[in-house]
């Protein structure tokens, strides 16, 4: 501070006329206008892309549910709200944010299977999968990996190795038990793991077992009829 004043006093002539600096208002306005235009542009494009993104996700989920329940005649989405399952989502809640299971029915209106989606950490990152289970027999009806970043060539065999995936469609019972190929004794809950992808295979088995443990209490009290057949109006 004092240095500055001294310098000014010492050489009043040499002090260059101050450059006409940019006003604070102009700086603020530049950023404000740029920000407003950016926001406007993003909102406009979002109007166009958002419905497509949601539609794609819904389509993918529907395909997955149909696959792991081996083609149900129809299925209902039941949301877990306050510890109870309900087909009706309270207003204001987003469906994709809620825990839910998908109950599939046969043509005759009987429960064919329940599809549950769950994600837990695998080898690299979270492995997200969906599987179907028949509550009557405790046997799986299918399994599909929804998202995974497992090592290419090794861990990604959990969805690329069709022999491994096929096992989940053949009705293994829960809780699943992972065994080395050829080491099992033919028990109905055994899954042959993938050589070189032990951690990823174990993750798949663990996710399914944990999901069943979490949701099993709800299986008994499920309405045996699809929502549409209960005579309720939505």
């Amino acid at each position: 501070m004092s240095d500055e004043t001294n310098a000014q006093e010492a050489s009043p002539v040499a002090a260059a006329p101050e450059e006409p600096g940019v006003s604070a208002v102009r700086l603020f306005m530049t950023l404000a206008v740029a920000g407003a235009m950016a926001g406007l542009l993003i909102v406009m494009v979002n109007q166009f892309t958002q419905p497509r993104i949601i539609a794609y996700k819904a389509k993918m989920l529907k395909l997955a549910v149909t696959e792991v329940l081996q083609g149900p005649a129809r299925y209902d989405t039941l949301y877990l709200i306050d510890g109870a399952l309900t087909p009706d989502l309270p207003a204001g809640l987003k469906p994709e944010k809620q825990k839910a299971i998908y109950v599939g029915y046969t043509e005759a209106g009987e429960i064919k299977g329940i599809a549950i989606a769950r994600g837990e950490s695998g080898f690299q990152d979270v492995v997200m999968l969906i599987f179907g289970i028949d509550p009557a027999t405790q046997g799986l009806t299918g399994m599909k990996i929804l998202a995974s970043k497992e090592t290419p060539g090794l861990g990604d065999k959990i969805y690329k190795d069709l022999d491994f995936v096929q096992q989940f469609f053949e009705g293994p019972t829960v809780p699943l038990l992972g065994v080395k190929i050829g080491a099992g004794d033919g028990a109905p809950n055994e899954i042959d793991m993938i050589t070189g992808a032990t951690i990823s295979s174990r993750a798949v088995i663990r996710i399914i077992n944990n999901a069943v443990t979490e949701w099993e209490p709800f299986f008994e009290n499920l309405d045996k009829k699809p929502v549409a057949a209960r005579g309720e109006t939505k």
Partner: protein
Amino acid sequence: MRTTTPKEDFTRGIWRENPVFLQMLGLCPALAVTNTVENAIAMGLATFFVLFCSSLLVSSCKSFIPHEVRISTYILIIATFVTLADMVLEAVVPEVHKELGAFIALIVVNCMILGRQEAFASKKPVGRSLLDATGTGIGFLIAMLMMGGFREVLGMGTFLGFELFGPSYEPWVVMILPAGGFLTLGFIMLGFGYYEQRKIAKAKEMSDVEGRVTS
């Protein structure tokens, strides 16, 4: 700085001053998402789009942007186009978008893009800036393709998903893992270095010969 012709503005980014192999910019996506040709192309095109649009906007608005807030304005412009690219990719090619994951958002901090705004678009006319952006964008795309092609062919035995060598080929899995990215980049840069040295040696030889002739 020497002034350049419009032709040079366009061509130098493509090869002679390739952003990845010679300027060492944008290495993060070049290493991370070049495990397949498809990912490399998608990333290259998304980056091209952001670079081109940002250069257009920065160059046309340069007289309105005060020097003090230029970096924040450029980043805002770049981030806007990255968000647009992200949303459009997710809506149009969701499978590719899933593969690229967080790296789309990371285009915002690609030094190559901010570098072109600061060094070129903010000083030159719109037309020249677009030439420069196009050249640099193509150079980046070429670099991504070289990396992606090399890695996918060796690491999976395929090119754009087409089987190349038949079932007896044992893929070099390491090439599609992160280590393969570093190896590929290293080998390509070794090639560039070797070529440059050869050129210098040749030029020296020529001048020596000329020197002897004149003396």
